[in-house]
């Protein structure tokens, strides 16, 4: 009222609506003006007719209904309780990785590892830099083994398998039952067989000893499919005692390897690669060692070799004897071999390149004492005896390492032991067989008849991670801890004790296998507790290792120091009990015992280890199945490798099938024409064709183990009495590289012509270090060349040191959450590896010269991918990275088309969902993922990031420590894994950094430099240490 009154009074008096108003005397008009509404306007307004809902109530209802609608539209799922640390664990800072030293037990090399854990879950396994043998590196298998921890197929509780249907049972019931049965068997004097892998752990050996002490009828049968048995037996024949020594590969100037794939499978390959490539360091040296490889098919060692001879495995004995005869003749040695074969005749008979053989002979003689002849572990004993004699004759024993040797904790079971055991199993006198994480049904040659014998054992136990062929026939399957959930100590090298510690509490109701035996050995199930084996090892160490170490520390400090370091190296003389290599006097008589290899047909079957899945134990590991074969690039399969000439003879082509038969043992294999295979050789890799290996591994590849025989005439791996015939049908082998390029005349040597691989000889390089034509001309570019101030990231790869071991690939896969896509999708060209190792051939299909080249995003300064992305999802960072913005990417794939290196990878599917019905979407696989790296959705492009998460981490640390970021702060996953340290990474703007020197190196080149992409990966050209061709 007041308000309107004021307005009225404030009005310009000149405005009026009526005369009456103007006069100001009409009370009605005055009243009208005073009212808010004009007369009549509010006539219809009746408060009683209005809704009784108040304004407040209305607003309350409105907001409630909106909130209700909004909340019902979200896809909120109850994800369970989320409990923050109400008391932060001392060691864990969320977002910061913890590293724990441990040991990998993937093979008998027992490498020291560093396990990276995030918020309590192990996400990556790398080598332990403090370990004196593997020095911070582990192989592809070790890298990939972490996924086995989270494998959905893992056995989660003890299972009783009798009477068909499996039923879950409780550990105490198992313990009680077993203890009773063990007592019964033991008191009845009947054998209890424990079938174990090669024992690498002194404490484990003690567990077994304790067990045998409690149950005296127990007997341990340890084995490994690929072992050093032959080599050591030959050593004892040549030198009466000891075991085959380790070789100083780094000191060798000339290496002649007879089927000895020491860079990929023979011995401690990580150490071998490191030592061997020291002699082939293009960055540091101009002096190279020279490697001669005599082998039946192309292997990674053969790729690294300067000269190769193709020879069937059964001819190696004749070859080495002929070589001895020739050398003995030339140097005037009195050594006589029992078989008088002249080298010339042998060369002519086997159609070997005479010039190469001549080089080999003169090199061995000229550099005697700095040369070494090495024979593969699958060759017959006689070859090794002859090799020992040859090395002795040339004085090459200087290259044997004397201070250290491989330690054998427990002798492996021999053929007679197996026959004995199986005989007893068959006649029912073995009531209990304990498979101690082994799979003899698959591993042993079938003519032992182990499978049928096992069925007659009333109490067969399998302790294992996940179901296998053996457990399927056992009465009980007991789940054991994964490596990363286990305690252990491993001693495989003189004086080196590698400790294994759990980094996560067991995910399931599993127990450490040693703890199970300890419990049974104690005779009381109540003696079991989580720490039983931990206590046992500590106790053991206190009495053993610590007592011998004469350490000034108290035991607990000593123990925790060792645990933190992951390894304890005892002074060499402090461990006298270790059967180190002892070179006694050479027994010349051993030579005379050599018998000629039984003659056979025109084909020689050579069974060898594969490069990914071990002896088959990693069959259920998708990462490893999808790892391309280092030579053929086949994934998810094994095959019969034959030479082009043999293929012609058999009338077969790629992917045709041949039947390989050895008497009654027959198996069909797809053919893979492997360039560089010896004519007549059929080379097949073992470990495939498992039929009970989980959802990923079952039925992958073809079982070649069944071709092995315990009564093999030569060795269980070499058969020259084999017959081969073509059968109908084909079998598609999937490779990550097209196979036909070596045969296609138009594509021949494209890698050399296009400047993808640059090569030279050591001699050329010594004469003229700048022999490599530099093509780094300034080119005109439409784009502004970016200028980098501060750090600029770049990588260098020394092709001389790359042996194609694949460790980098797996390391990258695990670090960057790269999915497994499966055989079918690899066939469709959709493998997701960010990092690949390309293999090229030049030369002829018979005598190829092969190259390996790691290929990954080149992080080009003027990247062609960046220009064409319509949505700017791939961009350049100021520190020289070519970046992918996943959440901006719509997936046009234009960037990949325009990438000359084709290193970009596209998520054609949600591969985790698509592979094996979402096998890797099951719990608990997501625990594996590196939380620092986005898990890419389908429809998104991805590629190598130079491990940007590690760069960011390093940058954060530098900021925190108030210093400049330095190139050496960052180690990429591939670099970290590379056993030969062929990969360097760092700041190209830092003139003192190794990478700057790499970029300026005489051998340095960039791939496809003509395109002016200005790549930031510098390769060092491949040098071969060959004689100039006249």
């Amino acid at each position, binding site marked *: 009222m007041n308000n309107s009154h004021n307005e009225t009074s404030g009005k310009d008096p000149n405005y009026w609506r009526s005369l009456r108003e103007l006069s100001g005397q009409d009370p009605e008009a005055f009243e009208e003006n005073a009212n808010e509404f004009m007369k009549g306007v509010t006539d219809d307004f009746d408060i009683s007719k209005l809704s009784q809902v108040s304004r407040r109530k209305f607003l309350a209802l409105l907001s409630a209904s909106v909130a209700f609608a909004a909340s019902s539209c979200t896809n909120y799922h109850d994800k369970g309780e989320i409990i923050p640390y109400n008391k932060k664990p001392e060691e864990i800072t969320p977002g910061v990785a913890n590293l724990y030293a441990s040991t990998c037990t993937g093979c008998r090399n027992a490498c020291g590892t560093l396990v990276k854990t995030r918020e309590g879950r192990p996400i990556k396994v790398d080598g332990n830099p403090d370990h004196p043998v593997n020095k911070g590196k582990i192989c592809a298998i070790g890298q990939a083994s972490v996924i086995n921890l989270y494998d959905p197929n893992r056995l989660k509780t003890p299972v009783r398998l009798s009477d068909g249907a499996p039923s879950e049972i409780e550990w105490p019931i198992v313990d009680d039952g077993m203890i009773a049965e063990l007592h019964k068997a033991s008191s009845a004097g009947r054998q209890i067989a424990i079938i174990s892998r090669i024992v690498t752990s002194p404490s484990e050996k003690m567990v077994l000893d304790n067990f045998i002490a409690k149950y005296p009828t127990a007997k341990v049968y340890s084995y490994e499919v690929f072992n050093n048995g032959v080599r050591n037996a030959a050593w004892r024949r040549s030198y009466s005692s000891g075991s085959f020594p380790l070789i100083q590969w780094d000191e060798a100037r000339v290496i002649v390897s007879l089927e000895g794939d020491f860079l990929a499978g023979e011995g401690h390959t990580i150490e071998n690669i490191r030592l061997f490539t020291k002699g082939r360091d293009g960055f540091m040296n101009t002096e190279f060692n020279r490697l001669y490889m005599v082998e039946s098919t192309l292997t990674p060692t053969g790729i690294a070799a300067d000269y190769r001879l193709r020879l069937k495995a059964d001819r190696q004995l004749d070859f080495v004897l002929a070589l001895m005869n020739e050398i003995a003749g030339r140097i005037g040695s009195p050594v006589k071999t029992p078989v008088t074969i002249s080298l010339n005749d042998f060369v002519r008979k086997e159609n070997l390149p005479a010039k190469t053989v001549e080089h080999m002979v003169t090199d061995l003689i000229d550099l005697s004492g700095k040369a070494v002849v090495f024979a593969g572990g699958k060759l017959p004993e006689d070859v090794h005896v002859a090799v020992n004699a040859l090395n002795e004759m040339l004085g090459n024993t200087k290259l044997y390492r004397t201070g250290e040797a491989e330690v054998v904790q427990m002798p492996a079971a021999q053929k007679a032991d197996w026959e004995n055991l199986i005989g007893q199993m068959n006649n029912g006198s073995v009531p209990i067989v304990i498979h101690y994480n082994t799979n003899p049904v698959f591993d042993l040659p079938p003519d032992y008849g182990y499978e049928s014998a096992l069925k007659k054992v009333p109490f067969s136990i399998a302790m294992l991670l996940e179901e296998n062929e053996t457990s399927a026939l056992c009465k009980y399957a007991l789940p054991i801890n994964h490596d990363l959930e286990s305690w252990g100590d491993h001693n495989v090298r003189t004086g080196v004790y590698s400790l294994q510690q759990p980094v996560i509490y067991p995910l399931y109701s599993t127990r450490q296998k040693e703890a199970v035996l300890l419990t049974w050995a104690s005779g009381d199930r109540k003696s079991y507790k989580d720490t039983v084996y931990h206590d046992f090892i500590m106790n053991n160490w206190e009495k053993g290792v610590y007592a011998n170490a004469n350490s000034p520390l108290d035991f607990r400090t000593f123990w925790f120091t060792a645990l933190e370091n992951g390894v304890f190296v005892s002074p060499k003389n402090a461990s006298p009990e270790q059967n180190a290599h002892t070179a006694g006097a050479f027994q010349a008589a051993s030579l005379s015992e050599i018998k000629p290899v039984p003659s056979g047909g025109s084909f020689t079957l050579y069974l060898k280890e594969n490069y990914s899945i071990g002896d088959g134990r990693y069959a259920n590991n998708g990462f490893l199945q999808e790892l391309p074969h280092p030579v053929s690039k086949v994934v998810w399969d094994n095959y019969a490798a034959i030479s082009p000439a043999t293929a012609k003879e058999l009338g077969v082509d790629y992917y045709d099938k041949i039947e390989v038969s050895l008497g009654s043992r027959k198996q069909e294999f797809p053919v893979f024409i492997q360039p560089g295979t010896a004519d007549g050789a059929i080379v097949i890799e073992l470990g495939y064709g498992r039929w009970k290996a989980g959802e990923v591994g079952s039925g992958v590849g073809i079982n070649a183990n069944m071709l092995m025989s315990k009564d093999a005439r030569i060795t269980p791996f070499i058969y020259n009495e084999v017959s081969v015939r073509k059968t109908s049908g084909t079998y598609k082998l999937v490779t990550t590289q097209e196979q036909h390029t070596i045969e296609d005349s138009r594509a021949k040597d494209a890698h050399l012509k296009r400047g*993808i691989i640059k090569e030279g000889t050591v001699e050329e390089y010594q004469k003229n270090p700048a022999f490599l034509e530099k093509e780094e001309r300034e080119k005109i570019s439409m784009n502004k060349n970016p200028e980098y101030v501060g750090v600029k990231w770049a990588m260098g790869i020394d092709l001389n040191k790359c042996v194609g071991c694949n460790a980098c690939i797996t390391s990258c896969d695990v670090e960057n959450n790269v999915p497994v896509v499966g055989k079918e999708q690899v066939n469709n060209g959709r493998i997701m590896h960010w990092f690949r190792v390309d293999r090229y051939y030049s030369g002829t299909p018979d005598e190829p010269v092969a190259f390996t080249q790691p290929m990954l995003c080149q992080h080009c300064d003027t990247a062609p991918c960046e*220009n064409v*992305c319509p949505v700017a999802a791939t961009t350049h960072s100021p520190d020289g990275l070519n970046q992918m913005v996943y959440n*901006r*990417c719509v997936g046009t794939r*234009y960037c990949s*088309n325009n990438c000359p290196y084709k290193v970009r990878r596209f998520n054609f*599917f949600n591969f985790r969902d698509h592979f094996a019905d979402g096998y890797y979407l099951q719990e608990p696989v997501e625990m594996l993922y590196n939380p620092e790296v986005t898990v890419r959705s389908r*429809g998104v492009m991805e590629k190598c990031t130079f491990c940007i998460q590690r760069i960011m981490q390093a940058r954060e640390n530098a900021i925190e420590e108030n210093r400049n970021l330095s190139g050496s702060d960052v180690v990429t996953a591939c670099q970290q894994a590379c056993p030969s340290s062929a990969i360097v990474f760092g700041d190209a703007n830092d003139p003192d950094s190794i990478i700057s020197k790499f970029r300026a190196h005489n051998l340095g080149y960039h791939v496809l430099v003509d395109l002016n992409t200005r790549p930031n990966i510098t390769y060092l050209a491949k040098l071969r240490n060959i004689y100039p061709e006249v």
Partner: protein
Amino acid sequence: MSVDYSKEFSVIEGRPTLAEVNDLIARPTETRPDRLYYIILTITVSMLLFGVVCLGFTFYYGIGEWGNNIPVGWGFGIVNFVFWVGIGHAGTLISAILFLLRQKWRNGIARFSEGMTIFAVMTAGLFPLIHVGRPWLAAYLFPYPNEHGVWVNFISPLVWDVFAVSTYLTVSLIFWYVGLIPDLANLRDRTTGKIKKLIYSVFSLGWRHSNRHWHHYEMVYLVLAGFATPLVLSVHTIVSFDFAVSVLPGWHSTIFPPYFVAGAVFSGFAMVQNVLIFVRKIFHYENIITIDTLEKMNKIMLLTGSMVGYSYAMEFFIAWYSGNPIEQFVFINRAFGPYAWAYWIMVTCNVISPQLFWFRKIRRTVPIMLIIGMFVNVGMWFERFVIVVTSLSRDFLPSSWHYFTPTWVDLGILTGSFGFFFTWLLLFIKTLPVVSIAEVKGVIEGAQVEHHIAEDSTAYRPRQQEDI
């Protein structure tokens, strides 16, 4: 034979009256569809639905349902896109460029080919959207202001594509619609159905055939023709930039823009010719879409086909002349590598078959020209396949070479695109006049003021009658 070249032949035969023209052209829109129409519609809709199902698989599971891989990141999706954009070239060329060049024979076929242009560009426009890995984010391809401050990458040819194709579609649509206005008014005046009348009334924008209307109409049409003309050349030029701007041998080539435009006109004419042959037969338009007109189209196909053949030869020459071994390899690989079959299909269909049009008899024989036109369409599809797939499948690093094999989903979506295109076309021919009534009336003999009136106009065309 003596022909008086100072005289123009009428492009319309049989001297129809204006009313007859009205009746003839409007008839399909005024009669109920017959059995044949339904049968064909069933086929095209089935094809379309099959494509939709395949698209459903693609959206649900991912692009992995297609044959694409690394290195062949683009497969059928982009092949189909370029193919359909190419098909869409004849329409505007006929209606705009030939209009500006005063080629009266275009009047009989302009409307139809413009319609085809629109449907072809609509079909083409689907592919860039469906071929991306995450189609639900395809809007990122458009520059729109957003809170992230992220803009599109203006140096990417795919962004140019977005503009080129959408501009072309817009201008073609407007041009087509403007041309339709007088005819819509005509239909409005003829129709008796209430709903039809309403629709035609709305869309004819109150056209009253007044002189003033005609005056404005002619001017607008001329201006739009001027607008559309550069677009005819620019769209496929820009599409060719998708390839030419890249570094890939086999793509990275300066010949691409003219080569692509010639190819597009070539395939567009082949498609127009193919479909018109059926339309003129079924709707009895022989006098409007005459053999003469078809022959002229065939001549254009002969010309553009020869240009395409020249481009193929020139690509090889330049590859050799460049001295670049990778470039040389790519072209030798095209002709003799694993995709040689596709290459030789392309050469046979695109280079050899149109050369038959040198023979007048063949140019004027409907069944043969139909077959050649189909060959050209097949060939032009394969041309894009050869360019896209063979170049990608074997590029710089032999280690990454990989063969591309299409899946049934790829084939399904290709089928679906034909279904989509022809379904629109079928709906078009029953709802709108497929020939411009107004423009045809304009070129009937006697419709225009002429200097000399022929005493006997039939004297000019004895030849044509015997050919029919």
